[in-house]
């Protein structure tokens, strides 16, 4: 079917971009993979109604951001429930994001995990997207100046943390 061909083309073109956007917003690969699959399921359902008012990439990134926000809300509400029970809370802490996770992560990623969410998203996407400010701004729907400012602040914080860690 023509719709299937169009979807296959979208999947081939955007799977890495969408995965990286989800990884930047959610902070761990497992959630990113699951949520990126949800994104493509939404795209598949909505593709017939896409009329080209916005660029395809803009449309896809908007779906991806909304899906990630839904996943973050679900995660936050699960954590909210977990606060009522110390045992469940401990379990929730164990499965929390890779970036703040165990020692197998490089130090720098653990430091990135400690940044505010907005800085963390910009930093992760910037280095995953071959240092393109424009691409990060498009994917996160942020002004270019904001991306540059947040990135500068994030790098400065990371550098300061590295200096502090120096013996």
């Amino acid at each position, binding site marked *: 079917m023509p719709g299937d061909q169009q*979807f296959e083309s979208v*999947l*081939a073109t955007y*799977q*890495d971009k*969408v*995965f*990286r956007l989800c*990884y930047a917003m959610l902070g761990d690969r497992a959630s990113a*993979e699951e949520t*990126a*699959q949800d994104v*493509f*399921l939404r795209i*598949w*359902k909505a593709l017939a109604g896409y009329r080209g008012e916005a660029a395809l990439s803009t449309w896809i990134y908007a779906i991806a951001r909304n899906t990630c926000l839904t996943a973050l809300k679900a995660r936050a509400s699960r954590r909210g429930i977990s606060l009522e029970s110390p045992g469940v809370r401990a379990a929730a802490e164990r499965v929390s994001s890779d970036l703040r996770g165990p020692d197998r992560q*490089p*130090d*720098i*990623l653990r430091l*990135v995990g400690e940044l505010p969410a907005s800085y963390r998203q910009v*930093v*992760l996407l910037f*280095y*995953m997207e*071959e240092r393109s400010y424009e691409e990060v701004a498009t994917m996160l729907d942020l002004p270019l100046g904001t991306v540059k400012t947040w990135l500068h602040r994030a*790098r*400065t914080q*990371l*550098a*300061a943390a*590295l*200096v502090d860690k*120096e013996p």
Partner: protein
Amino acid sequence: MDEEQALHIVDEELERALAGVVAPPHFADAVRRRVRADRVSPLPEILDSIGWAAVLAIVFALSLWLVPMMQSSWWLVGLGSAVVIPALYVGWRWGGATAE
């Protein structure tokens, strides 16, 4: 280590850790599986069609049973009476009322 050196290390390490991050190799297949599972099943449409076909078949069978009855004389007498008697009654009442 001064800040400039630290920034350089930050860039190098983030580059090393994050450059080349791509979706897992099985990702596209997993998406296709989920899309296939999510496709609307044709079963409700098929059952709906069977239901309507059954209704039409019943209507057709009933018409085969009713049409011969409609052609019999008793049916015509009954139908004629149902029209003529009320017409006579209404005519008699209306005519009588205006005559007075």
